[in-house]
């Protein structure tokens, strides 16, 4: 579980996050949604500690992140898996070396144990025979899968995904969403996904947080979103004519 209380963040004069308080539950896909520039990525990066909040508290289960010293923060980070928007795979390393990277640094496993774990993670994301390839030799979808494999390499308690299906075709995007969802439930992780993909919202949105101009404008589930009466949310979620018709039909029925 991750709990945020009264998070404020600004860059210079511009206030990006305003009084964000919420709870992300374990074993659920928690989605942060909102238009481009609404503050989603800043919120996600603030949660996992890449940006420091100006004020407010972030609790990882019962641990207050800001109360930890740098060494303790590093130890906590080792329990986090992160999938960056552009996958952020290391150019200088092969797929196997990319997934093995956190194991090389943070574990004392033997090379056989590491190889076994790499094979397991790759199998888990439905990839095979790519161990010796470099990231530049993979398609966008495969890069995302390798990114997920690396994120789950050390069996993290918390998984963060920044726009996991941006730049992917709809079919591959659904596969990636399902994969993240399956992994979340299987390993009972606290997963936070940053997205503006409506397919993701409707498919895996156990919990949705809609950010508008740096504030939480609406909170709910994928089943509640269709009946929501938040105007800014409806403008965002039901932006297309087709989506608006679907909403109207649901509301009437």
């Amino acid at each position: 579980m991750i709990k945020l209380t009264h998070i404020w963040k600004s860059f210079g004069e511009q206030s990006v996050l305003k009084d964000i308080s919420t709870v992300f539950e374990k074993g659920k896909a928690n989605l942060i949604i909102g238009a481009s520039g609404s503050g989603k990525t800043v919120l996600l990066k603030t949660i996992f500690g890449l940006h420091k909040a100006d004020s407010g508290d972030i609790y990882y289960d019962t641990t207050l992140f800001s109360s930890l010293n740098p060494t303790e923060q590093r130890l906590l980070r080792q329990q986090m898996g992160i999938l960056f928007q552009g996958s952020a795979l290391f150019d200088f390393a092969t797929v196997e070396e990319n997934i093995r990277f956190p194991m090389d640094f943070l574990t004392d496993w033997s090379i056989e144990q590491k190889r076994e774990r790499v094979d397991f993670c790759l199998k888990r994301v439905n990839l095979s025979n790519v161990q010796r390839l470099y990231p530049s030799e993979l398609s966008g979808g495969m890069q995302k899968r390798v990114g997920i494999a690396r994120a789950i390499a050390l069996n993290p308690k918390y998984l963060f995904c920044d726009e996991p299906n941006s730049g992917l075709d709809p079919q591959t995007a659904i596969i990636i969403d399902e994969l993240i969802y399956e992994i979340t439930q299987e390993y009972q992780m606290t997963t936070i996904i940053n997205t503006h993909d409506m397919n993701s919202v409707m498919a895996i949105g156990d919990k949705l947080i809609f950010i508008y101009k740096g504030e939480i404008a609406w909170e709910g589930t994928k089943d509640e979103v269709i009946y929501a009466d938040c105007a800014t949310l409806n403008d965002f979620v039901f932006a297309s004519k087709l989506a608006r018709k679907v909403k109207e039909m649901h509301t009437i029925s």
Partner: protein
Amino acid sequence: MARIVNSMNIQNGIKLIGSYSLLMKRVFVKPEKWRIFWRYFFIELDKLCIQTIPLIMIISLAVGAVLVVQTASNLENPFIPKMYVGYMVRESLVLEFSSTLIALIIAGKVGSNIASELGSMRITEQIDAMEMMGINSAGFLVLPKITAATIFNPLMMLISFICGLIGGWMMVVASGMITVEQYVDGLQYAYTPYFIVYSMVKMAIFSLIITSVSSFYGYFASNGSLGVGRSSTRAIVVCSFLILISNLLITNIML
């Protein structure tokens, strides 16, 4: 107005030095895993040093040859022995060319390579990914570069020096401006081994400047590919400036 601009420049300068010092504080820590450090040390040694040797050899051969022609054509006075050509070539190479000018060439090749590599890693979030894994990205990425170049590049100075002398000899043989005996006599005349030490020390310090400053600019690159290009250019400019300033200081201290 001029005062405000000046004080802002001073402030920026202090900020820059502060950021550089903080980065170096994170770089010069005990590696988390020595086995990984040595692996990347040898990778960087190959990339930054070994792959630069052919360029250094070609330039040094050419400069050695040119020095012979220029010195011989300027020493036409019959009272000055011809062996001074060899002596002056040796002194020019050991005192300035094989350390300072080679360092400026390395700054162009290696400095831009380091800054653009780290800059690209920064803007594609690879450095963030390392940090989020709880890994000291500065130590992992920068320390092998600095140690490899600082340890190996003094040898590069020796390679350049020897190639320069060989280039001079080839020109002597090809042009016949002086005899090979005169050239070799000049090379042996008033030989001071300390100059080699001085030049190697200079090269080690220049290498430290090149790798650390380029890493600094690359590590903090921002604003996409344009930012990477800008950081690469800044790295070379600042490195060249610092090499010239430190050359002056080291020469005053050591000679």
